[in-house]
């Protein structure tokens, strides 16, 4: 660095020099000026060599300042006079502005449109929009913000730090100014205000709810909603799909995306793949556990409300990529049938297209043992049909190499301010995501349904049934939301499209209930294979609006949701063994024309379509009576559903006397023997339909409500009202899929179409940070449309056929009481008690009406159920432990505990004849109550979280006690899930000033299996004196033997009989440990 003297600001303008430069470098030019002006310059070689500008000046009388400006023009350099020297330095970088944004609400959690926020230091300001949201663009720095609104105390927040190009979230609740016009300003620090806001919504909600906000989700490593849900008190999920709330099964919980119900992605069960929704697009997730009249959907456990963003606070582009390793998948063979070229992209390449239109039904019209003159359908026609259906190249299990799961996501948000206050804004947010996951679940034992219940000899370790379930899932997701906000109006559009290719291939090896192991013809196990390649398209489009006109708030929404799910070329196959001297060889079994039903080998197609249209409108009027504030809200809702289900089953069969050597033909070549030239000796697709193979139903659910919200005394709030709800389900076509069900009927008549559902919620805060709550509500949970179909299908996971007996609505009376204490910012301590009465609860039963010893699973209504329970929650900062350790202020411990008990009065359907000789049905009620299906009596979560500025650590433990998995009339039908404890951990780190995040998730660290059992008849005995008694209930006739109970007891092998005496372990499934690493970068 070179220093000189004599430089003064005015000198540079006055001092004229002669300067002739011709394509000179910057340094050379400045030295020329220095020489001419005699003013000393400070130059840095390192700095000047960065610029290659060539300077040409030809001036006889130019001021020194002008000369320097010309030389430095178009460079990132500037000059400055420092102690009489001219210093050449880099221009300071202009900082990009940051943002402060959030919501302004009152002390009851109501948004305050029009409230204003002012920056004390600069005087800049903004107003809250119709949703109470505001946004301020500010240069980086630390500011004091003042929030104010008429008749509310102004609130001044100090120390609000704005960093370059980042958003500082700040939600604020203003207290009512009860002392009139006297100006009161509350002052608090940013940190306290921000953290406290995390629980503000829960604290101020009119109903019992728990939730997680975008800020809280941001502090977790979660990538999708499926991972986030289990962080909410009382919520647990199975495989990120089924939601259990307060220990109550998924059937009694409702999930809404932006206020519209999500259809199930499975036809026979209620579940939704929550992992479709990336967390960075989520505004918040609230789980309501008590009901207010304005909620259009009834529930018993909880209502999961997921709200995605529509107008972002600031522009962003973010990309993320991740990969995961599963300990039971990678490094092992991954089995499945032939794949398509585009399976990784989620689309079929046509290789599974084997279901042409206009297929001939061969039942009674074609017999390969007869000639054409005796058949209505000729062999040539069958051959032509075989050709149209196509070959069997895709069939047969094969090995693939598993690939680590991978996921990619691109998200984009844009916002456009339409005025200087940033209140009127237009914006959109979009996301494109891709994920491929491959899983290999190991089922170490399956002894349920059609499988042998016990080994033939208790000490034969080879007599076991086991297998694997291979999951190949590709998911593409596209979300595009947009919105327009003004001070009084807000219109949003939410659009979600997802494409899921989910292929589940299960392969079990073992002995069946009908053919247990023996040393003769059942020496070796059978192999059962089942592949279900399912392509699902889900599209949801929604437009909603909120308008505030004086004291009125109008809300409306219109949504259309369609789901189309096609199982294309689903295959069921069976392999029998052939023992030879040089080994045991397996051969695919083929059907025979005399087989009843579909036989051992069939390829099927199942098409499900559902269109939902829902609309809602509500108007709320705010008014004051004296010093009390009130809201009257009324509205209506409408939900129309239309569902279609079609199925095609194509058994592959051969004639009775066929000599086609199928044992010597790979199954992939069987299609070459379908030409029917030698009719009796050909293989063919034996399409046999006894019914239309169709289901079509419509349902209509509409309602209207009136609700009053009274903010009475300070700290007392009451919300009450009622809704009238109409529900009607009509099945238009309802074919039976089993021949045996062809002549059976389904009873699902609702008692009445209209129900009146009252509700009331009372919140009282006797002191600051303490809430006492009580609520009552009546709710109706409606049956799903397929729950009333006569469709039945074998489910390989249950080893049983799943069918329906007809289901009607369940009415639930919910009573809740809760005490909440908010001891510090972001801390909570709560205790809740709930009691629920279910009128006609629908439950999954195992029945054996056909008395074949195997039974089947069905869903039907019991008489009533009563559930009562306690729920506790704690979240506490560890700062109190030791003041000296500053990191403790970022450490939270949290936990929640749910304890509950249920009782059900079960009933058995009975069929008989009425006095006039007509078929009738009636119920036989059981005297002894039992637990409700899906109930988990003990559920707890415990976790510790450190959320530092860069490093985040999280460890959590989730425990679920005994769960009633499938219920039944007596204990040997009731299947329980054994207690399971899952441990997860996450490490996250932020790089590049928050632009890049890395997350390492470790889930199921204990490799905890899912274990199910049935109290086997060997564990109980008939009570003395009851021998030969008929028509006794189990509790009257039997008692558990010494050492056995309803809980799981492994038992022992009886030395005399060599039989197991103990509970039957019906299924044990290991899913492995998963380690996933993801990187995300925000531009």
């Amino acid at each position, binding site marked *: 660095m070179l220093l000189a003297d004599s430089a003064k600001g005015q000198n540079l303008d006055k001092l004229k020099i002669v300067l002739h430069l011709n394509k000179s470098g910057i340094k050379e030019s400045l030295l020329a000026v220095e020489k001419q002006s005699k003013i000393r310059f400070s130059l840095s070689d390192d700095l000047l060599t960065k610029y290659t500008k060539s300077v040409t000046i030809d001036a006889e009388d130019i001021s020194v300042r002008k000369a320097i400006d010309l030389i430095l023009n178009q460079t990132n350099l500037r000059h400055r006079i420092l102690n009489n020297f001219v210093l050449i330095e880099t221009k300071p970088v202009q900082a990009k502005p940051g943002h402060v944004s959030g919501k302004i609400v009152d002390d009851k959690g109501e948004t305050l449109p029009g409230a204003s926020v002012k920056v004390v230091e600069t005087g800049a300001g903004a107003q809250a929009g119709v949703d109470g949201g505001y946004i301020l663009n500010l240069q980086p720095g630390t500011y004091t913000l003042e929030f104010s609104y008429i008749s509310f105390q102004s609130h001044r927040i100090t120390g609000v730090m704005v960093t370059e190009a980042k958003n500082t979230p700040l939600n604020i609740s203003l207290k009512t100014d009860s002392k009139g016009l006297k100006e009161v300003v509350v002052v608090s620090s940013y940190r306290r205000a921000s953290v406290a806001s995390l629980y503000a919504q829960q604290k101020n909600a009119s109903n019992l709810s728990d939730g997680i906000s975008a800020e809280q989700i941001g502090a977790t490593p979660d990538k999708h909603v499926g991972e986030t849900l289990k962080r909410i008190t009382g919520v647990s999920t199975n495989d990120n799909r089924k939601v259990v709330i307060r220990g109550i099964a998924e059937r009694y919980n409702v999930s809404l995306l932006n206020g519209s119900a999500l259809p199930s992605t499975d036809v026979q069960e209620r579940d939704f793949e929550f992992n479709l929704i990336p967390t960075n697009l989520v505004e918040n997730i609230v789980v309501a556990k008590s009901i207010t009249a304005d909620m259009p959907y009834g529930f018993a456990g909880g209502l999961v409300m997921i709200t995605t963003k529509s107008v972002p606070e600031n522009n962003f*582009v973010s*990309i993320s*990529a991740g990969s995961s390793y599963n300990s039971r998948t990678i490094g092992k063979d991954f*089995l*499945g049938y*032939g*794949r*398509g*070229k585009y*399976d*990784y*992209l989620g689309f079929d390449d046509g290789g599974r297209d084997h279901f042409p239109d206009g297929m001939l039904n061969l039942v009674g019209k074609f017999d390969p043992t007869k000639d054409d003159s005796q058949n209505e359908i000729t062999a040539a026609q069958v051959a032509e049909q075989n050709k149209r259906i196509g070959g069997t190249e895709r069939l*047969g*299990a*094969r*090995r*693939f*190499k598993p*690939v680590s799961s*991978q996921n*990619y996501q*691109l998200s984009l948000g844009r916002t456009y301010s339409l005025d200087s206050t940033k209140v009127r804004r237009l914006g959109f947010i979009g996301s494109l995501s*891709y994920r*491929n996951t491959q899983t290999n679940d190991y089922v170490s034992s399956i002894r349920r349904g059609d499988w042998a219940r016990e080994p033939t*000899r208790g000490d*034969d370790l080879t007599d076991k049934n086991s297998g694997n379930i291979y999951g190949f899932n590709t998911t593409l997701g596209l979300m595009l939301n947009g919105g327009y906000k003004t001070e009084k109006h807000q219109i949003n559009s939410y659009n979600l499209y997802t494409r899921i290719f989910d292929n589940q291939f299960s392969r079990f090896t073992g002995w069946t209930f009908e053919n247990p192991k023996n040393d003769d013809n059942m*020496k070796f196990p059978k192999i059962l294979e089942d592949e279900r390649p399912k392509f699902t398209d889900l599209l949801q489009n929604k437009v909603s609006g909120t308008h505030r006109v004086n004291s009125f708030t109008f809300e409306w929404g219109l949504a259309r949701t369609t789901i189309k799910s096609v199982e294309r070329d689903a295959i069921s196959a069976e*392999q029998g063994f*052939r*023992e*030879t*001297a*040089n*080994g045991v*060889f*397996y*051969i*695919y079994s083929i059907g025979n024309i005399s087989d009843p039903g579909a036989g051992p080998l069939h390829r099927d197609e199942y098409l499900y379509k559902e269109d939902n249209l829902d609309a809602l409108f509500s108007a709320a009027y705010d008014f004051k009576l004296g010093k009390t504030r009130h809201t009257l809200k009324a509205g209506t809702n409408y939900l129309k559903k239309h569902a279609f289900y079609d199925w095609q089953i194509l058994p592959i069969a051969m004639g009775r006397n066929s000599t086609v050597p199928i*044992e*010597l033909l*790979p*199954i*992939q070549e069987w299609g070459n023997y379908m030409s029917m030239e030698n009719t009796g000796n050909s293989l063919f697709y034996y399409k046999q339909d006894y019914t239309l193979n169709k289901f079509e139903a419509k349902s209509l659910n509409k309602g209207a409500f009136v609700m009053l919200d009274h903010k009475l005394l300070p700290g007392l709030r009451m919300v009450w009202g009622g809704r009238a709800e109409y529900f009607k389900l009509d099945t238009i076509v309802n074919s039976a899929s089993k021949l045996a069900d062809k002549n059976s009927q389904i009873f699902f008549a609702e008692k009445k179409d209209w129900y009146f559902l009252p509700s009331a919620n009372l919140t009282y805060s006797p002191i600051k940070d303490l809430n006492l709550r009580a609520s009552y509500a009546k709710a109706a949970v409606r049956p799903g449309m397929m729950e009333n179909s006569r469709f039945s299908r074998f489910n390989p996971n249950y080893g049983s056929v799943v069918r329906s007996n007809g289901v009607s609505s369940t009415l639930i009376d919910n009573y809740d009481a809760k005490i909440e204490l908010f001891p510090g910012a972001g801390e909570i301590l709560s205790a809740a008690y709930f009691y629920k009465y279910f009128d006609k609860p629908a439950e999954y039963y195992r029945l054996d009406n056909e008395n074949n010893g195997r039974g089947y699973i069905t869903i039907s209504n019991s008489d009533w159920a009563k559930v009562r329970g306690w729920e506790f929650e704690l979240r506490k900062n560890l700062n109190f432990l030791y003041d000296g350790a500053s990191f403790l202020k970022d450490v939270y411990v949290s936990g929640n505990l749910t304890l509950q008990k249920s009782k059900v009065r079960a009933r058995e359907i009975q069929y008989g004849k009425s006095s006039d000789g007509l078929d009738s049905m009636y119920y036989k009620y059981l005297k002894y109550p039992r637990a409700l299906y899906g109930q988990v009596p003990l559920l707890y979560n415990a976790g510790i979280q450190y959320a530092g500025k860069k490093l985040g650590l999280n460890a959590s433990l989730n425990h679920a006690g005994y769960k009633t998995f499938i219920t039944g009339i007596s204990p040997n039908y009731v299947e329980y899930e054994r207690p399971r404890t899952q441990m997860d951990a996450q490490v996250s780190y932020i790089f590049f000033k928050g632009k890049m995040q890395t997350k390492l998730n470790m889930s199921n660290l204990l490799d905890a299996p899912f274990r199910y059992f049935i109290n086997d008849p060997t564990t109980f005995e008939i009570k003395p004196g009851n021998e030969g008694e008929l028509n006794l209930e189990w509790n009257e006739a039997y008692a558990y033997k010494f050492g056995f109970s309803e809980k799981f007891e492994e038992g022992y092998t009886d*030395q005399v009989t*060599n039989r197991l005496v103990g509970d039957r372990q019906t299924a044990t499934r290991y899913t492995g440990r998963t380690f996933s690493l993801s990187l995300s*970068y925000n*531009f």
Partner: protein
Amino acid sequence: MIKKIRIIYLATILPVLLLSACEKDGTPMLPAIKAFNENFNISGFVIGDTIVQYFDNVKIREYYGQVRTVRTGNQLAFTTDEINMELKRKSTGETIYRQTFNINDKQSIVPPFYFDGLKFNEGYAYPVPKENEYTANFYVESNGSSAPVDINIEVLEYYEDSTKPDPIVVVHTTTIPLAENVQPGSWTPYLKIPVPMVIPEQDDHYLYPIVVVRDSKTKDYYISKNRDMSVISLEIPYDGVSPGKVQSIYLNRKTSIEKVTYLESFDLVQLFPR
């Protein structure tokens, strides 16, 4: 901006690169079977060491005692044109016999063999009977539960009483020793079997000769201290029988999968007819 585009571009093509490595057809689980040869036969007898049978280097089964072709094992499944069978000594892994079967062979027969734990023999050698003499040698299997045994002819003298649950009432037993203190693990020399000469005490009594095995130390019946369970089928000469007979009796005290102890016995002369 350029950096941004590059990253987005990379993020887009990365999955494509990963997906391009995917398999479509996989490797079929089941091998294609070219033919079944239904005339496979293997027979023999193994003592002293176990024989392990390999087909195309894959261990299939183990043999000890009688080797025979069961109904489900009389076929060979050809996935290639040839199948190589090897029989190995379990204790050493040494290959003691090798045979190749061809898909075109009409029959796939392993010559009957006798393995004494050391040497693999084609067939079992035994002497020719001398005139009308009955001789037999004995082998008691050496396993954890075996013990030295005595082998006797016991002639039961009985009468029938149909009023009793067991109508056969034995009144007297005459013992004729055949072999004493037979040590497990080695063949006895060929011993002469006498004609049992017993006269009943009463006219309405009957005689029934049996050959039984007893524990040499305790003199108890060898199987569960039960006479009937300790009987072996050894042919006894009767007065005037012609011609003579040679028998090689293998005895093994075993426990069934039903946890019942029983006596397995084979006459190797019958298993290896001349």
